[in-house]
């Protein structure tokens, strides 16, 4: 006894002190009753009735998923407006932006932003987008909503942690945004918050005092939220799979979320202590990151002997996996949508899963490529360059599987599948510039230029956004119970697709021309002749940004007035389409589905068409068999 799994009773009827046999029997019965209840009501909680428990502090993974989506949407709007402000300033440096002085009197006197305020906006743009959009939307939002349904569970195993995960993340967002209104504004150190600027306090510039502390608190909170989320994702995938759902029968999205949560678990657990150390440097006077004899603004800093590179190591050990945390769910979502649209299986689903796993593992070995010019030992630069080139192999295999699977398929064009194709395009275009940056010798020239900005915006930013859009168009019927407008969706796609190329392709040329990133304006130097390119990009950014309002309109209008959605509008096979639209509280209406098929049985002849649902016990022949 005491060995795992060899109990005699249902729960443990244990008495604190010695008890009589009669009492034992009583406890035995009680515990059996409790267990039958818990077995039927499966995941611990019953449908809530009060508004607060139903919509605000909900334990339901579907509500939490929608909350995450709403948070990501709000954050994306904030981040987009910030990028507009920055772009206008880059194109027309002295132009006054009406109303900006209301946000910060000192940062934008008369509506013209100071260079410091430009950096503050840039930092917030990056932080909001990377953490609160690219991490929350494809991973936390869609994952929360669909992972339990796709594995056939009734909820996540720890609903309270799940609720906490969202509200801690929300709190993190509030703390981050509050820095706009406290003291001299948000921090200006960039989303990477490099040391020693992040640790010297107010002497470093506007926002380097309270702004940095708020940033660090916000990100530490965010880490806690994502760790709790990862805990739920991993246990859901491993333990709550329904009968017949072996690991290899999980849809690619479920695999992507599982792999992402493993990455998140490792990455966020490292970023959090790093944030704590920075906060200590600020408030307790320690010297983790500030070197001796550092003079900033003519003031000798009181710190001694800290290592500025240490922050970069800790940060990028998180930071590089973070970009895969942003993109791997996108890979899963896009594969899921492409297969549904192609009406046939991928060339190899197994290889696709292995590639995502390889991306996850390799992402921890390449982080040093962000630090080629940091003063790191050149030999370690070589050591980091090699896996950086190796990591392109699984990424390339993924793309090749997509492209060659597309060949000869009866592709169904709709907004979701268009965005999935757009994802491939962005992923390839952004990925190709990665080859250049992965070589230390070339990176010496390109580092810190717009080339890098163009690279990561395409491969991580826009590609992941396209994944989010594809997922939204694809799953909106299931999430909201109504269809989105396809015409508006296609207009949104083409404007976004062409627009993002207009914005981010010129970034590469700017970078090769030597245009340094993070500068707020270039009126008096060799970059002066590049200003017209910036103006062109600004116009493109404003138009492309405005095109996102079409999406917003479509989203809100369809939510309330869209055409009611059938249970399985895309004729898809995975479990989320076998339940009602929108799914009932316990996902499958009191039943446990049983899984009989691999996730993507398309191109077959069955009683419902050219596909067979995972839950259908129907025996079908593939076209291949018939030949």
């Amino acid at each position, binding site marked *: 006894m005491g060995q795992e*799994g060899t109990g005699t009773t249902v729960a443990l009827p244990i008495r604190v002190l010695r008890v009589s046999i009669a009492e034992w029997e009583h406890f035995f019965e009680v515990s059996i009753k409790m267990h039958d209840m818990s077995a039927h009501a499966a995941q611990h909680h019953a449908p809530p009735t009060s508004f607060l428990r139903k919509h605000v502090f909900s334990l339901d993974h579907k509500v939490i998923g929608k909350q995450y989506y709403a948070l990501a949407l709000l954050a994306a709007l904030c981040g987009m407006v910030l990028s507009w402000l920055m772009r206008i300033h880059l194109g027309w440096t002295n132009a006054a932006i009406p109303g900006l002085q209301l946000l910060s009197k000192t940062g934008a006197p008369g509506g013209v932003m100071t260079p410091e305020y430009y950096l503050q906006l840039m930092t917030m743009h990056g932080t909001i987008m990377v953490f609160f959009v690219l991490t929350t939307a494809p991973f936390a939002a869609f994952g929360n909503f669909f992972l339990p349904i796709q594995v056939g569970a009734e909820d996540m195993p720890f609903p309270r942690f799940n609720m906490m995960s969202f509200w801690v993340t929300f709190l993190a967002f509030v703390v981050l945004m509050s820095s706009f209104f406290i003291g001299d504004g948000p921090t200006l150190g960039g989303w990477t918050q490099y040391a020693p600027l992040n640790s010297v306090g107010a002497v470093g510039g506007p926002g380097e005092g309270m702004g940095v502390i708020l940033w660090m608190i916000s990100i530490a909170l965010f880490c806690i939220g994502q760790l709790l989320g990862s805990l739920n994702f991993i246990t859901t995938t491993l333990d709550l799979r329904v009968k017949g759902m072996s690991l290899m029968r999980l849809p690619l999205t479920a695999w992507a979320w599982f792999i992402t949560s493993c990455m998140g678990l490792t990455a966020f657990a490292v970023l959090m202590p790093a944030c704590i150390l920075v906060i200590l440097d600020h408030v307790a006077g320690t010297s*983790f990151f500030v070197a001796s004899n550092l003079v900033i603004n003519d003031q000798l800093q009181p710190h001694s002997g800290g290592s500025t590179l240490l922050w970069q190591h800790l940060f990028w050990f998180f930071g590089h996996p973070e970009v895969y945390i942003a993109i791997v769910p996108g890979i899963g979502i896009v594969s899921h949508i492409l297969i549904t649209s192609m009406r046939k299986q991928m060339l190899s689903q197994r290889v696709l899963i292995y590639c995502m796993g390889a991306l996850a593992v390799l992402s921890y070995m390449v982080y040093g490529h962000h630090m080629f010019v940091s003063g790191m030992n050149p030999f370690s630069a070589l050591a980091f360059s090699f896996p950086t080139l190796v990591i392109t192999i699984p990424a390339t295999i993924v793309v090749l599987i997509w492209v060659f699977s597309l060949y000869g398929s009866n592709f169904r064009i709709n907004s979701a599948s268009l965005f999935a194709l757009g994802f491939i395009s962005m992923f390839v275009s952004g990925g190709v510039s990665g080859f250049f940056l992965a070589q230390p010798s070339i990176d010496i020239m390109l580092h810190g230029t717009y080339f890098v900005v163009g690279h990561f915006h395409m491969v991580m930013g826009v590609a992941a956004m396209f994944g989010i859009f594809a997922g939204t168009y694809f799953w909106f019927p299931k999430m909201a119970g109504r269809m989105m407008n396809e015409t508006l969706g296609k207009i949104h796609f083409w404007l976004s697709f062409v627009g993002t190329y207009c914005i981010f392709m010129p970034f590469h040329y700017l970078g090769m021309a030597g245009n340094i990133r993070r500068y707020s304006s270039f009126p008096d130097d060799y970059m002066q002749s590049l200003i017209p390119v910036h103006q062109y990009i600004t116009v493109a950014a404003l138009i492309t940004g405005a095109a996102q309002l079409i999406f917003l309109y479509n989203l809100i209008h369809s939510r309330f007035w869209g055409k009611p959605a059938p249970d399985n509008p895309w004729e898809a096979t995975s479990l989320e389409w076998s339940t009602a639209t929108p799914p009932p509280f316990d996902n499958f209406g009191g039943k446990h589905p049983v899984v009989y098929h691999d996730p993507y049985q398309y191109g077959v002849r069955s009683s419902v068409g050219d596909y067979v649902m995972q839950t259908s016990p129907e025996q079908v022949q593939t076209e291949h068999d018939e030949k």
Partner: protein
Amino acid sequence: MASTVQEPPPIDPHREPGRGQAGNGGWRNLVPPDNNRQAVLDYSPPPTSTAIWVVLFAITMMFAAFTSALFVRKGSSLDWQSFTLPPILYFNTLVLLASSITLEVARRRIAALRGDLNSQVNGPAVWLYITLFLGLLFVAGQYVAWLQLRGRGLYLATNPSSSFFYVLTVTHALHVLGGLGGLVYVLHKLSKSILRQNQLDATARYWHFMGGLWVYLLLLLWSKL
């Protein structure tokens, strides 16, 4: 392949169960026969058992980050000043290790109770209370160690060595407090006779991990400070 249908694994009602029915095909691959729940011996939901490993992994990563920071920081500058650790730390170590032993005793008593309901085993709660007491004693002992360092003029910001000492010990102590919370939870469930095996197992694993982690930290601090 002739057919795409693959039947789910057959259900064997006589099979020794894993840890629960909620998995229902998941990692433990335990499927209780319909309406035959008596055949399944322990309905404890398995995610708790998985989750505790996930939690321990995250904590490991966190302390790995602190450790690497310590190594880099020590190597990056000459301002590192060594100091001798307060001797009470060794006493605390013994206390924490002893608490692991008492927790195991409690676990065995609980197992004995489950194995034979008629057995005359003394209540395991006493041993859990002893574990709780030893855990509190450990945290109190750590507090005394911090006071002693303060008495020697070593504060958080005095030197990087003292900075790391405080950061590592305080973070560990906070995690130990979390473990104490887990023990209180177990005691609460025990007193209401609704304790599940895997709740106890998870708490015990966490607690033993805290002990192991402390031994590691002590070796690190002893060799590096």
